[in-house]
């Protein structure tokens, strides 16, 4: 039987990675509970909110309660890391890996670079913006300005995020930059369908991870986390809409 502190550290690390990279609350709690039980701990209890993790269990070796809390400050969207941790916990629970190997692999996952290089994500934002804009406006000519806008918005978001601490403000500025560029292209007469180009420009900013997680958290009974994520998604959408509204005001009034 391993020491309780080691098991605690392993479970918390797995939970920390899942929460940081955008998993839903239910999955984090479930993963930590299963890992704790598979390690032989009793009375495993977890509580996860959007910004913190609590884990407690009773060790059968020393018959004492262990409880720890972990504050999560940075949150990203990287679902491939969530998938890796999920796979790792499955292998641990079914007995394929020892806790030492799990710890090593968790460290590897944490220190690994992003699944895609950042230029590839910029490119995907451009292509996604262009292709999505066709679904809205059905004008083939406007796909190119929309793609350019999506590319610039994604680059702007990453650049602003490096310097600004407030997530919502960098989203506001990025959508403002993108919408300004789109409106400039409209003014130069390159665009037939303004609507389509603006949507294609700001669509890479959509807070998809908090939105879907909010719905799933609320439905699986994690009310605190669900409401918090819903608020995050709402404020994100508002800041994106605000950025576009300011750009529109400059040109239309």
């Amino acid at each position, binding site marked *: 039987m391993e020491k309780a502190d080691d098991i605690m550290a392993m479970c918390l690390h797995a939970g920390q990675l899942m929460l940081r990279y*955008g*998993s*839903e609350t239910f*999955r984090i709690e479930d993963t930590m509970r299963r890992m704790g039980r598979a390690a032989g701990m009793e009375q495993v209890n977890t509580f996860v909110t959007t910004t913190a993790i609590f884990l407690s269990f009773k060790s059968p070796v020393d018959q004492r309660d262990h409880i720890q809390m972990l504050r999560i400050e940075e949150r990203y*969207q*990287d*679902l*491939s*890391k*969530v*998938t890796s941790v*999920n*796979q790792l916990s*499955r292998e641990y629970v079914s007995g394929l890996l020892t806790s030492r190997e799990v710890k090593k692999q968790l460290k590897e996952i944490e220190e690994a670079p*992003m*699944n*895609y290089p950042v230029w*590839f*994500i910029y490119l*995907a*934002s451009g*292509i*996604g913006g262009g*292709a*999505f804009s*066709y*679904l*809205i*406006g*059905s004008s083939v000519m406007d796909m190119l300005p929309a793609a350019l806008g999506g590319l610039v918005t*994604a680059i702007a978001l990453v650049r602003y995020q490096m310097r600004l601490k407030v997530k919502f403000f960098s989203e506001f500025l990025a959508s403002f930059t993108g919408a300004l560029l789109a409106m400039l292209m409209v003014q130069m007469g390159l665009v037939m369908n303004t*609507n389509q180009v*603006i*949507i294609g420009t700001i*669509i*890479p900013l*959509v807070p*998809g*991870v908090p939105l*879907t*997680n909010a*719905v*799933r958290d609320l*439905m*699986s*009974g994690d009310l605190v986390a669900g409401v918090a994520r819903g608020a995050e998604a709402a404020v994100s959408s508002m800041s994106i*809409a605000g950025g*576009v*509204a300011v750009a*529109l*005001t400059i040109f*239309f*009034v």
Partner: protein
Amino acid sequence: MAMFALELGLCFVATIAFAIIFNIPLRLVWWGGFIGVGTWAIYSLMPVLGLSLVFAAAVAAFFASFVSQWFARFMKVPVTTFSLPGIIPLIPGSRAYETMLAFVQERYLYGLEQGVETVLQAIAIAAGLVFAFSVFSVGKGVGQRYETHR
């Protein structure tokens, strides 16, 4: 017809691009693309049959979430990997833009009208997700309201 085929193709490309924006592993990206295409087909064909856009959004979101749950169970990965790109084509971007434009130009009544429709469509997407999630968790939920099993 050719227009519709082009739409579906572009929808596939857009969904995959969004899967990459959300950093989903490359081996799973394609499945999300197929779900996105199915979602868009439902969402754009139902209004042709005379049903409302909001209802179409709900059914399409239900489809996306339901198929995602199957795929996730089959491949043993988190559901979000598939459902997140799957519902991207449903985002009511055009209406949201109309809402904002109307408010900027001080046409408040029209803005409210468009805003209500945007919100309704967002709620419909959430409802579709919730229904599929509930269908899959029959018998696994938590206790509620009456403790009948004592």
